[in-house]
């Protein structure tokens, strides 16, 4: 069930790009504000904590995949029976579809606020989803190609943060650990949304050649993402004063307002246009994972499932109108992801372990 033809597989090294490009999405633009509200200038420690915990969860994920011979949905089926297991898998499909939809709608909001106030949601949504369909129809290899390029090409944006250093006061981060540990941990939970993305490994593991060897690349991706987020948080905390940060909905974009290159002023427009490349793999991979689950659960072709899911995403974007609603869908996704990764996955692992002990194997 979990074996895929070799010509459709990619090398394990690609796992790095898939996971990292999936993790870096829309959350990066504004996550600092929420965690600074909870943990103040110690928020960067929360990010490190969240990153560390994601490594642990990834180990559990890989273990589950080994147990299930690469097919996570099969594990659901074996543990909970056909119907209940199928229900859980369907819920997972909804989750991935929701991820695509939330990322897309949040990005559209950013464009509407920062660049083109009169951009119609449906216009951009339609065009973008059609592009994503064009990509996903080509199969996993094309999606991975997009992940690869859409991580490498925008990576030059890292250097733009050099210009921000001038206005950063690092003494604002002192004293370290000045906040109660409960606040730091709570803020770590709030970073989940930005760390989400690596659970897609559950779906694309069969498409990796020599799957077991991909673990080191996946961990490398998590490490890189964590480091990147931590550095970004440190920079943000030094750049803004606390209350000022509370007033910024998108601190990263505001930081880009300070960047001035010799031939481009007001770099944030370039940054936002580049961000299209960064969210493209997020939406594509979400659609791909979701349709793949549907293909395995229902007797429909993946292409059909893809079209249906994309249509659902499109119509959903039309129903979200303002800041509050965008915030709401982001929070819902955050919570859902958190519960899935930190509660559901450990539960499944424990159950698998018990079942394995009792039955001998799953």
């Amino acid at each position, binding site marked *: 069930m979990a074996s895929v033809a070799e010509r459709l597989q990619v090398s394990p*090294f690609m796992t790095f790009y898939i996971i990292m490009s999936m993790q870096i999405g829309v959350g990066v633009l504004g996550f600092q504000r929420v965690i600074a509200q909870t943990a103040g200038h110690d928020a960067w420690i929360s990010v490190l904590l969240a990153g560390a915990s994601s490594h642990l969860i990834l180990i559990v994920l890989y273990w589950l995949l080994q147990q299930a011979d690469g097919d996570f949905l099969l594990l659901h089926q074996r543990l909970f029976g056909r119907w209940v297991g199928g229900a859980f898998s369907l819920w997972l499909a909804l989750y991935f579809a929701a991820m695509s939809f939330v990322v897309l709608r949040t990005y559209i909001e950013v*464009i509407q606020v920062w660049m083109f106030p009169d951009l119609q949601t449906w216009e951009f949504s339609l065009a973008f989803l059609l592009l994503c369909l064009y990509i996903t129809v080509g199969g996993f290899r094309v999606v991975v190609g997009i992940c690869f*390029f859409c991580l490498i090409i925008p990576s030059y944006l890292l250097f733009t943060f050099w210009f921000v250093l001038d206005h950063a006061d690092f003494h604002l981060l002192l004293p370290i650990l000045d906040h109660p540990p409960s606040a730091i941990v709570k803020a770590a939970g709030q970073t989940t949304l930005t760390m989400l993305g690596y659970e897609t490994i559950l779906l694309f593991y069969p498409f990796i050649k020599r799957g077991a060897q991909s673990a080191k690349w996946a961990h490398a991706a998590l490490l890189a993402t964590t480091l990147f987020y931590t550095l970004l948080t440190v920079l943000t905390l030094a750049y803004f004063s606390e209350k000022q940060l509370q007033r910024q909905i998108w601190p990263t974009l505001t930081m880009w307002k300070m960047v001035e290159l010799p031939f481009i002023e007001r770099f944030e*427009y370039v940054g936002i246009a580049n961000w299209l*490349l960064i969210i*493209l793999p997020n939406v594509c991979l979400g659609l791909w994972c979701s349709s793949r689950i549907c293909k395995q659960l229902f007797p429909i072709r993946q292409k059909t499932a893809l079209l249906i899911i994309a249509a659902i995403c499109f119509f959903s974007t039309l129903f979200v109108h303002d800041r509050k609603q965008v915030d709401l869908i982001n929070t819902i996704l955050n919570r859902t992801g958190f519960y899935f990764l930190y509660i559901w996955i450990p539960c499944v692992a424990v159950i698998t372990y018990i079942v394995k002990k009792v039955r001998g194997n799953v």
Partner: protein
Amino acid sequence: MTAPPESVWTALQTLGSSMDFQTKVYRNETSGLLLWVSYVEPMVEMETVVRSIFPYLFHCPFSSLEDMRQILPIDDAYISSDPADVKAKLFEGYLFIRLHETDETGLLVKAQKTLERTLTIPEVEFSVVGPKESFIESLETNLYLLRKRIPIDRLTVKLTRVGTLSKTKVAVVYLDGIANPDNVQTVLQRIKQIEFDEMIDSSYIVQIISDNRHSPFPQLLDTERPDRVAAVLAEGKVAIMVDGSPHVLIGPTTLVEFFSSFEDYFLNWTIASFFRLIRLFSVAFSILITPMYVATLNYHYELIPKDLLGTLITSRREIPFPPILEVLFLELTIELLREAGARLPTKVGQTIGIVGGIVIGTASVEASLTSNVLLILVALAALASFTTPVYKMGNTIRLIRFPFLLFAEVWGLLGVAFCFCMVMTHLLYLTSLGRPFLAPLYPPRWRDLKDAFIRLPFTSQSKRPETLRTEQPIRFSGKKVRKKRDIDE
């Protein structure tokens, strides 16, 4: 397709309806035999016939076709009674000699006329240093040029004929034991499956056997340099040579190869790498600069540095058109100039190019139809698009600019980013003979990057490109250990 003629006699009758088909009767002086000699006049080299064949035919004693064959000094002579064969050979310039008018069997003697261009310098891929031989239209000469550069037995040539009307000879050339057999098989199979009537040129073959016919990006590299073909055959590629075409196709190729000129290999690697990077930059510049102009002027005035703002505004002040119309006007003018210059004979074409370029450009600026800033940008972009060494890719670059312009007009910078994603996705889908077109970028092959954007020295290129999956990856042994010496030792 007509059914093959039933006999040699009917075949000759059909041929007789053309005025250039001759059947003449000669008498052999010595034995008194009559000889019926048939040939297609334009295809036969009369001098060879008169000098080398007729003396023997008319004066030597023989009594049968077999004797004739042994006497004649021409090597390629054989007896045949197959009508299809006779017809084919007649059109290749063979003489058909029979002893009686109604004989079905005769002797085919080669007397082929070969008229071809002399070897000249390459026109499209001219290089300042390095050999200046280029392929010509004759397949035999082309094979000669190739074989003298790889004089070993592993250079295999497989010949087929393509085209029902043209019966063009197509040769697939590769190094046995080095080229991947899958690649070779793919090529051979695809060529065998071609159904076409008049196969004129190798570019017809490209369009028919390409993996993705609808893509503006070329997927097989064509070259007119024998040294380039020899070099890539040594890497493990497959070459397709077509009789009548001076362009030889090479596959499988990748995108980065279309931006490398063969001259890079004749220069020092640092210089070559520098030129390659310039080429890449100029291509990116050429595609993006006018769309950026449109996007910035339409939507993103804040991006322009303050000092430049004044210049741009004053240059655009009197112009009645929006930026997109300005740009389209200039782009189309340049295309017109180029097309017109290509159609006219050389001398007139050059004049038109200069006159058109300078006069129209200056006049339109003075008439305030376009701004001078934009004129410079468009001219630079046009120049930059011609830096691609492969002509076909240059055309593609010019084409690609227009979607970017449209997207920039509608969605500004966002549109440019969107169009970029679309182009990138399209490239991801492309394959060349089944191999990914974007290698060594994706799937990343780190070793092949040594010859992609920069060119590392030959000593570090001791392995053949991974994308070709050759059978013998090692070309030559890499490093020789040098004795380490201290200063002044």
